[in-house]
């Protein structure tokens, strides 16, 4: 029996301990905001937070989730400054990768209140966007950083 805290609630899971967290979230817990893109941690569409750190849920088996706290896009208190910036800059096109991008950006801004373009490149280059919204993502992260600073 695997116990975890998912978006603030205690959960248990007694299925295949090798099942990646991604498929537990999507097929078992019914939280579909976290996306499947590659299954190999190459695209970042499945990014969630484990104890506040960004992880790729597609390669994280349930046994490694045991006893930890998982936050998905559904668990982010809306509307987070990062989401707000995403809307103001109108980042998305198709939108499929954007929840992963947002989760990665929130994790970046938690550790780095004032990221440079270089910092953003390093943190975000694992998250693919086939529509090509990278320049807007960078702008939105700078915007969110500003807003978070004002709030602090």
């Amino acid at each position, binding site marked *: 029996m695997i116990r975890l805290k998912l978006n603030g609630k205690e959960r248990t899971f007694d299925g295949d301990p090798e099942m990646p967290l991604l498929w537990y979230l999507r097929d078992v817990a019914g939280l*579909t905001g976290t996306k499947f893109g590659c299954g190999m941690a190459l695209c970042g569409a499945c990014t969630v937070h484990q104890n506040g750190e960004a992880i790729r849920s597609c390669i994280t088996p349930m046994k490694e989730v045991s006893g930890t706290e998982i936050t998905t896009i559904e668990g*982010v208190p809306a509307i987070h400054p990062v989401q707000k910036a995403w809307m103001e800059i109108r980042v998305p096109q198709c939108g499929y990768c954007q929840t992963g991008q947002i989760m990665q950006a929130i994790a970046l801004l938690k550790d780095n209140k004032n990221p440079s373009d270089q910092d953003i490149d390093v943190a975000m280059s694992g998250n693919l966007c086939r529509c090509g919204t990278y320049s807007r993502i960078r702008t939105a992260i700078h915007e969110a950083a500003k807003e978070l600073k004002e709030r602090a």
Partner: protein
Amino acid sequence: MKNIENVSRRRFVQGALASGVFILSARFVATPLWAEEDEKTSPFDPSVWMAIGSDGTVIIVAHRSEMGCGSRTALPLVVADELDADWSKVKIDQAIGDPKYGEQDTDGSHSVRSCFELMRQVGATGRAMLIGAAAAQWGVAAKDCSTVPHFVVHKASGRKLGYGELAAAAAKLPVPKKDDVRFKTRVEWRYIGKESNALFDLPDIVTGKAVFGMDAAMPGMLYASIEHPPVLGQKIKSLDDKAALKVEGVRKTLTIDTVEPPHLFKPLGGVAVIADNTWAAFKGRKELKIEWGSSPNSVYNSAEFRKTLEATSRQPGKVVRNVGDVDAAFAKAGKIIEAEYYTPHLAHAAMEPNVAVAEYRDGKVLAWVPTQNPQAVQETVAAVLGIKKEDVTCHVTLLGGGFGRKSKPDQVAEAAILSKQVGKPVKVVWTREDDIKFDFFHSVAAMYMKAAVGDNGKPTAWLQRTTYPPIGSTFDASARYADDEMGLGWNNLPFDIPNHRAENGPADYHVRIGWLRSVANIYHAFAIHSFADELAKSANRDSVGYLLDLLGNARTVELNLKGDDAEDARNYPLETGRLRRVIEVVAERAQWGKRSLGKSHGMGIAAHRSFLTYVATVVEVEVDGKGRVHIPNVWTAVDAGTIVSPDNIRNQFEGAAVFGTSLALFSEITATHGVIDQGNFDSYQITRMNRAPRKIDVHIVESDAPPAGVGEPGVPPVAPALYNAVCAATGKRVRELPLAKTKLA
């Protein structure tokens, strides 16, 4: 019988609105739109485009799919504008697949282009009827009434009624003819062309509530993962599924017959693992032991095939456009320049892999699909199951990218076939490897170019020949010429050259060929605009000045076209003046020739018209000591005629710069003995943030010409502009995609 009529009840209205519903429906006829027609000759049901509830909620039907280009927002915005509706009170209802909406294939960058006037008429007619209802209630003339968003007003008496209050009365009025409806003038538009327009689904996207195909579910559904034949056309020789069936959560395995040509959108065939969840299906599939039979496509090796294509492109081909006498000009010319270009297969690699949910029950199919073409879903599923297409209901979810792949619903047919066998709804989920290996690939192409150059450096003759397995081979296994693709940047060279011939050589296919964002324009523009730049540099001319000289004076280019291309040419003549204008604008914004560039920096330009939109792009590159290309700047100027959402259009062209960077620098699909060599984003690379253009400046040139395409036309100029920039920076002329294959340092 009129083409617009009132209808009392419709599917989407039930439950969506309370009472007092005003529904405006439109009969879709291809040409001429909205003409009077005899009811007896019309086979179509009225189609419903919008409804107004007594609470004022306006529901507008989106009959085109949303894959990131903004059609689902843009078309309803046009209706809302002419209706004079308050956008915050608008809800969008996504249409199912149904011929009553006319064509629904969201590709070819033509949703706004084809539907702009239709959507305007839907809105304007609704507004006229709301005004009519208010005028009757007040006992005044309709011409003395006007609207402000969501209200009809009578200025003289200061009276005002909301659209919700008028809905029931408006519904009882006869539908006015088009000629009797007043359309807004351009200056009255509230939404069309305005910066305030944002994607309707934006709030749902950033909160994870948006429903993509991957997120669709049906009660009691099972999950399937399918091992397809590694080589197109291979059949199962033997199957051992014992180990697969032992995997926890796996229910059973099922086989799907291997496809026979023509491949159309039929399933490839293979072995499906049916399970309780996606992971169990994936895990079980890894345990399958399958021996595959032979296929004629096992001979396919990319390196050898390239030689065949190149050899063909050096031989005379089918003439697709002829001006003057190229051969005579070559015979007497002093200076001849020749060049050959090569571009590989590409995969679409939308971020959402291929997926579908379908349920077969009592001879009917219900499907939820991220599809660009729900009517193709109906036709394909009906054909493989032997049922009527009217018995296939296709709901359309949001698409996690499409780029042309999601016009082809082979995976929906898989889900329907499997559902029929297991007696439950089935969700088919393709892995990323499936998505890349079993694509309908963008074609591999070889181009041969030859020019005779006069003393002034300008060509007196220009021959161009292109050779590639055509998209037509997917529909007709004997197709070897790309007849239908010549309009994609090959039979319409806009240059002012007295002798010009365009040809197309034959090629066989060994994989399924499909259309990918901007299609054949990618390789055609690469060859044409690389070659134009080669001629400029050979003549020691500035690239921009030379390009303008090639285009010559502002004029309409004479094209001898047939079919759809001819229709387009009538409505959208190819104007070199508009192409010149975007070149001049982009050169100015990029400060062409005026910027002091650092060492190992270079700038390149290309200008290409596709999907009836004029685009010029300048790329600045920096080639580092390791030979890696960085892109500090991209500038694009675009004339797409009348536009709906400018910020979304900028986003499309920013994205096109990144998409173009992917295919210019990184992406290539190859085959060995018929098996695709790439599988995931490690072997099939697309642009990541750290290699994407740092700054992308998109400038929209204002135009009141009819709307043209915006989703695709940004892509074709990127690769040639980038390669021309690399040549400017390094002196190296590279003639094949992607650049990763060439050592620059």
